[in-house]
Structure formats: C-alpha cells, structure tokens
C-alpha cells in the first residue's frame, strides 16, 4: 500500500506531511514518559520484524498480492503512539533506502499505515478485549478484528488521498482499494493473531509493555 511519488497532488502531500510531522512530535512526547528497560528492545524487534514481514507478499485473489502492515501488532504490544514511531521509522527507511514509497508521499504513507492503522486497531482491540473480560479468546478476537479493520481503513484513507489528488475518482478508488484490502486484511489478522498467540504461550509478561 506504499504510495509512490506522482500519485498525490501537492496539497495532499503537504497536508498529510503536516499530519505525520505533528503525529511524530506527539508520539515522541507520549512514548518518552513510559519508555523503560524492556520496551527498548521490543521497539527494535518490532521494527525489524515488521520490515522483514512486509517483504513477504502473499497472493490474494486474481494475480494480486498483499503484505503485512504490522501497525495492529505494534499497537497491541506497545500502544498507538509507539506504533507511530515504529511504522514511521520503517516507512522512512523503505522510502530512503529501498525506494518503496515516495519521499513526497511519506506523510500520506505514515498517516495511513502508522497513524490510522495504529489507532483504529488499538481501540477496536481494547474494546473487544474488555467486552470479553480480557479472556484469551477475546484478546485474540480483538487483535484479529482490529488488525483486519486497520488494513481496510488505511486502504480507504489511501483511496481518499488518491481521489482528492485527482488521480482516481472516489467512486472507483473506494471499492477498488477497500475490496482488495478486505482480503489482504484477513492475512493481517491471521499473522497478528499467530504472533500474539506465540507470545502468550511463551512470554505473556511481554503483553504488558504498553507505553503510549
């Protein structure tokens, strides 16, 4: 879902750039408060894991692939503001070093895959987890549904940016992007639930590191 340069108009690039810069500034302030001994390696490991996992495109319908985003996993483990920092770092490195995602589109990519995906999955996860009284099934259901929704919402934000930029009309971009990402989101949910299950089974103490 990495937007290359050329797809966004200057106003959309500037506006999403401003949103991303503001989000990162708040994220630095918020994560600063609770960053501790165990959170530091978790931040690094999540960034490394998300980068590597994003390389592993999996096929979905009709000659199309999707890849893990990782915002939901990061948000569940460390909270939404830490997620903004992790995904921003991944997206900056991908753009600068790997030419995946445009430099001018970086703000939009951070807004979609960091901010929107991180916050939406976090609150859906928290809500469902609380509804099921924090039992294991509820936690995993919340993680899976939150992860699915995070990808769908990020793709709709991407569709909106393309449409405001005049690249593709709203009526085409929304069903096209939303539709395929409803499938890709299933992969996101499965990977997120699998990783959480592994952590629950081996080191459940690592589920309590939320910083912000």
């Amino acid at each position: 879902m990495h937007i290359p340069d050329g797809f966004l108009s200057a106003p959309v690039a500037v506006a999403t750039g401003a949103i991303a810069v503001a989000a990162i500034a708040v994220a630095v302030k918020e994560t600063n408060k609770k960053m501790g001994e165990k959170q530091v390696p978790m931040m690094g490991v999540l960034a490394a894991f998300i980068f590597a996992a994003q390389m592993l495109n999996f096929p979905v319908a009709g000659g199309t692939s999707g890849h893990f985003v990782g915002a939901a996993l990061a948000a569940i483990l460390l909270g939404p503001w830490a997620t903004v920092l992790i995904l921003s770092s991944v997206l900056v490195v991908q753009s600068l070093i790997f030419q995946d995602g445009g430099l001018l589109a970086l703000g939009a990519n951070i807004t979609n895959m960091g901010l929107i995906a991180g916050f939406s999955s976090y609150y859906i996860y928290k809500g469902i987890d609380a509804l099921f009284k924090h039992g294991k099934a509820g936690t995993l259901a919340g993680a899976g549904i939150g992860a699915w929704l995070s990808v769908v919402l990020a793709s709709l934000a991407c569709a909106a940016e393309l449409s405001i930029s005049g690249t593709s009309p709203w009526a085409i971009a929304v069903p096209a992007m939303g539709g395929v990402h409803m499938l890709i989101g299933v992969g996101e949910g499965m990977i997120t639930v699998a990783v959480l299950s592994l952590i629950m089974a081996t080191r459940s103490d690592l589920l309590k590191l939320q910083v912000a």
Partner: protein
Amino acid sequence: MKSKWWIIGLSIALLLAIISPIASKFPDGLDRFAEDYNFVDKASEPAFTVIPDYSFPGVSDEAAATIVAGVLGTLILFGIVFGLASLLKSRHET
C-alpha cells in the same frame, strides 16, 4: 536455555528476511489498482536509488540480492529504532 527473548525475536525477523525470495511477485493491492485503472504511469522515478526493489545492487543472483537487502534492512531498522527508544528512555530518566 534461557537466551534473551529479544534475540529470539530479532532472529525470527532475520529468518523472514532470509526466506523473503519466496514472496509473491504479484503487484500489491494499490499497484494492481493503479495498473487496472491506467494511472500506474503517473508514478515518478525516484530521484536517487540506494537498494531499489529490495535487490542489493551488484549481486547477480536474484534471490541472494533480495536476501542481502532484506537482512540489511532488518538490521538497520533494529538499530535505528532500538537507538531511538534508548534515547527516549534516557531523556525521561534525567
């Protein structure tokens, strides 16, 4: 048998980078949409390239070039974000 959990986590990430040549070569959701609706040509060429397309330049074997790129990126991100988090931790302790 009690190795640090984050070394295991980083090893899993590196393992994913090593198997990354098996990734699907199909275009992703956005690329596919851009191809189907004929705006893929709007994408501009990057101003500069370092390791384009997750393929380390100069390595002739395609799978090896992908693995080198993937391992490098995984380690770079671990380093940068570990460093950033350490900085945030030390700032709040002072």
